[in-house]
């Protein structure tokens, strides 16, 4: 069953069909929200909001784009709203719930290598966070692998050529800063 067929059934009030759409795309929605949100739980909340919002807006879905693209655009807007909310800003200033990376990058490697990987991820995370949003968002969206540049262009309202340049620029800055911290030589 294609997404389009499920969407048609969901429009008629079939929640089971929408549930199947949720199953198919929830991971991408959470990843897209995770680009903006600092914790996994926040990202899941945003994805949930976006999915419920998509259910209510199904009648407005014209079918010009894929359901997945449409859903990710809704998720992105919800995530931005949350990032820009005053309450969230205050929490970011005061809280320590900034979720760090907990899983090994390459399971099965030795403990030293895994710790080194985790340290590297934390370093990259800090450097990414220090990037301006216009570089950080395209970089992370591209890294999530859920959107093409055309879809990112639609979501961010920026031409895809500009987005490609921003991703390239962000990566170059990351590499420079990692090299400045000695990572290039050490690894």
């Amino acid at each position, binding site marked *: 069953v294609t997404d389009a067929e499920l969407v048609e059934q969901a429009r008629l009030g079939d*929640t089971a069909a*929408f*549930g199947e759409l*949720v*199953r198919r795309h*929830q*991971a991408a*929605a*959470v*990843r897209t929200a*995770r*680009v903006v949100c600092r914790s*996994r*739980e926040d*990202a*899941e*909340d945003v*994805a*949930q*909001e976006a*999915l*419920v919002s998509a*259910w*209510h807006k199904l009648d407005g879905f014209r079918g010009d784009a894929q359901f997945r693209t449409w859903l990710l655009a809704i998720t992105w807007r919800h995530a931005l*709203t949350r990032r*820009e*909310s*005053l309450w969230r800003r205050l929490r970011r200033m005061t809280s320590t719930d900034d979720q760090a*990376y907990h*899983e090994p*990058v*390459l399971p099965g490697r030795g403990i030293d290598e895994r710790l080194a*990987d985790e340290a*590297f*991820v934390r370093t*990259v*995370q800090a450097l*990414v966070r220090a990037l301006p949003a216009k570089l950080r968002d395209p*970089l*992370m969206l591209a*890294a*999530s*692998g859920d959107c093409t540049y055309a879809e990112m262009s639609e979501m961010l309202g920026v031409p895809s050529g500009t987005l490609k340049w921003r991703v390239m620029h962000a*990566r170059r800055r*990351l*590499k420079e800063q*990692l090299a400045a911290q000695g*990572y*290039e030589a050490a*690894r």
Partner: protein
Amino acid sequence: MSDRTDHGVDSQIDRALRAIVDHGRTVDLHARVLSAIDAGGRFRGRAGHGRWPAFLGVLGFRRLAFRVALAAVLGVAVFVLWSAVRTAPPPLGSARGGTTQPAPVSPATPAPGGSRALNRSAAATLAIDGREIVSPVRTAMTHRRRATRAAESWNGGLPPLEAPAPIELEPIGEPHMRVAHLEVERLSIAPLEMDALDGSEEE
């Protein structure tokens, strides 16, 4: 050599970025989403992570400017209340043991030669030990209620008093001087109660 190093760093960065967005982690929002839909679209987040009710979003509460404006309005309201409480008159109970005397008649009162019946709030313009207890301009419900409550605690089981008679002002020669005859029996009870508590004879 340099290209190979660059490629190595690139792949490490890619891996790190994918780890940051939790690539590969399992997600199960199915039950949460469907229960939220069944509940009418209300948000069901994690326990202890309450969200703004939906109507606040409709009112624009999610907008920063609206919140700042709302905070300013609330701040002004709190300041006004606080200043009103600060300038409120002392409660009638604090005047126990004092003597009652008519308040000085305001020079802005009546035209010469005539008498005038003051309304109830004006009639309550008395001074106990020279201190004004109820201002004629303070006719807000809170002050009236406070005065009534204090008077009730004074009176105890006494029968209710009759409505105070209108006050007549008599000219005493000079056009702006008046003598006010006030009948305020209720306020004169307090010192009697104090005497009774002290064990002295009641007058």
